[in-house]
């Protein structure tokens, strides 16, 4: 599903250049649930942003579902993001003046789906994350866990090939974090590829594979036995 070869990325700040990713090689198969770990500043978010086509690598190749991701213009990148990827952020990134269902429907709007169909589909995903009753509520009327569920429903709405989540439990208490992870595991059980960035060990243990980053290179990449989140709730 994802193939990365010799990926490099530096941030330029004035005269200085900070080499963040120093040759990353890794592949992700369809249906995997991967945790990217590492200390703060090791380049986890940078890698995920490149995978999400929100940012560009300086060097190296990236292939997503057989499509080489290279020299994309903004328009094409937007189309690919819409078609291939679902994002889940630490800070939720919901649009605060839109209701839960309208937030979920937004990627479908950009797919050009008609309103009625959009609403029907969005409602189905809200049901899936257990928030059907909260469809008309604005984000500021929802708890952190509920907001993240809305964000997950939104990420799923366009039926993407890969879900990318950066510290998706970072703003939540541990009970809520496990509930969210339970949802992620169920989504993965259905066969969807999921990559999450986290620095919490217990969260990483709930995936099937841990990739450890340090100073811009992968120092460890191992398959693990998944801990089911429900056991901890």
């Amino acid at each position, binding site marked *: 599903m994802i193939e990365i070869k010799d990926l490099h990325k530096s941030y330029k700040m004035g005269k200085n250049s900070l080499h963040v990713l120093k040759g990353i090689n890794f592949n992700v198969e369809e249906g995997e649930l991967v945790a990217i770990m590492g200390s703060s500043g090791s380049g986890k978010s940078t890698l995920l*942003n490149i995978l*999400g086509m*929100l*940012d560009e690598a300086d060097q190296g190749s990236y292939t997503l579902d057989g499509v080489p991701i290279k020299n994309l213009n*903004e*328009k094409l*990148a*937007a*189309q690919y*993001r*819409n*078609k291939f990827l679902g*994002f889940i*952020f630490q800070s939720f*990134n*919901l*649009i605060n*003046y*839109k209701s839960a269902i*309208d937030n979920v429907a*937004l*990627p479908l*709007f*950009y*797919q*050009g789906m*008609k*309103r009625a169909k959009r609403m029907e589909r969005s409602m189905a995903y809200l049901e899936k994350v257990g928030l059907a009753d909260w469809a008309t509520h604005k984000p500021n009327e929802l708890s952190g866990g509920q907001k993240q569920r809305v964000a997950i429903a*939104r990420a799923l709405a*366009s039926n993407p090939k890969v879900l990318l989540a950066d510290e998706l439990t970072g703003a939540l208490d541990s009970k809520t974090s496990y509930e969210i992870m339970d949802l992620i595991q169920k989504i993965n059980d259905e066969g969807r590829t999921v990559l999450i960035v986290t620095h919490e060990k217990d969260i990483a243990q709930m995936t099937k594979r841990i990739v450890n980053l340090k100073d811009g290179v992968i120092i460890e990449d191992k398959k693990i036995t998944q801990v089911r989140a429900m056991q901890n709730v």
Partner: protein
Amino acid sequence: MFSLERWQEVFETISKNKLRTFLTGVSVGSGIFILVVLLGVSEGFQNGVEKQFQGDAENIINIYPGSTSIAYEGFNKDRRIQFTNEDYALVNKETDQEIEFASPLYQIFAGLVSYGNESGSYRVEGILPDYQFLEKADIIEGRFININDVKAKEKYAIIGNRAKKDLFKDKSPIGEYIDVAGLNFKVIGVFTDPGGDREETRVYVPISTAQIVFGAGTDIRSMGYTLPKEENYDLALKQSNAFAAQIEQMLKSKLQIDPKDESALFISNNIVNTKEIYLLINAMKIFFWGVGIATLLAGIIGVSNIMLIIVKERTKEIGIRKALGAEPISIVGMILHESIFVTSVSGLFGLIFGLALLEIVGPYIELDFIRNPSVNFSIAVSTLVLLIAAGAIAGFFPAWRGARIKTIDALRDE
């Protein structure tokens, strides 16, 4: 670009961001409102000044007789000059200038006029039909004298609005008979005159009738002319002066007056006095256009500032939308669509309120220098269109910049 889906999205955004919509709307709406009122006041100012200065046609040339001061061809000095129909006809016939309007005048300064129990002392003037234009009189009821009335020596009267109010109160005077110097005249019209009450206390009758009724024979008291309007003031002045010189020479020779005699004829050439008015009105027009354009510019700058702030405020939202698959062009389209919609609607409101204010309050304004403020509708609408277009263009750049911010940077914005 303006699909139904987009409209729904725009409506949703607008209605869920009421404060932002309201603020944008108020600034655009009040801008247009102020502009419309300003243009209206400007128009009112012009009307007022024109009224103040232009009781008569601004290019009228009047010729009055005087007394000779030099003995000439067997006549003693101090001879009183008297014009007759013949002199008037001579000028019309012999001048090589094209004349626009011309009329002789025979008037009684204090004619006793009465209707029923009401009576007053009014200036009664015998005139020809063209006199209406020399005096800038406007008919508000009935009609003015025509050439057939003059030929038939009808006892018809056109009365000024002031005289009408004095004699008839609220009643229509048309077809009623008034008593002028002991004879019955039928009222066939009522006029207003920019000269105001002073000139609206007059009663006009055909000159042929006046000459009979007042026993004047073929005598006339003065004659008035206007020449066709010229492109610019200087040319108009030149033509007027040439005409004045020519008739002076013509009349002096016919009436046997010494060419050097300066008190036998008086020629008043109104255009000489109107240069200042021309200049004043021009300066005022420039001033109000200047203020209007400045207001418009301020409005445009205001709209672009608001757009800039809106885009800045929405950077994160733009990042989210782009992460979810919005193309840059759709971001630009969305922002422009919203802003054009809000500016159009609020601009329209400002326009309507401004026009309504002028329409309702305008007629009650009776200051000396402001009269009937009103605004040319097409000017108002084109200003609105211009503002919307300028707002869209001014809004395009912030929108475009907003859409071009790298998605990842937009998402980081707090």
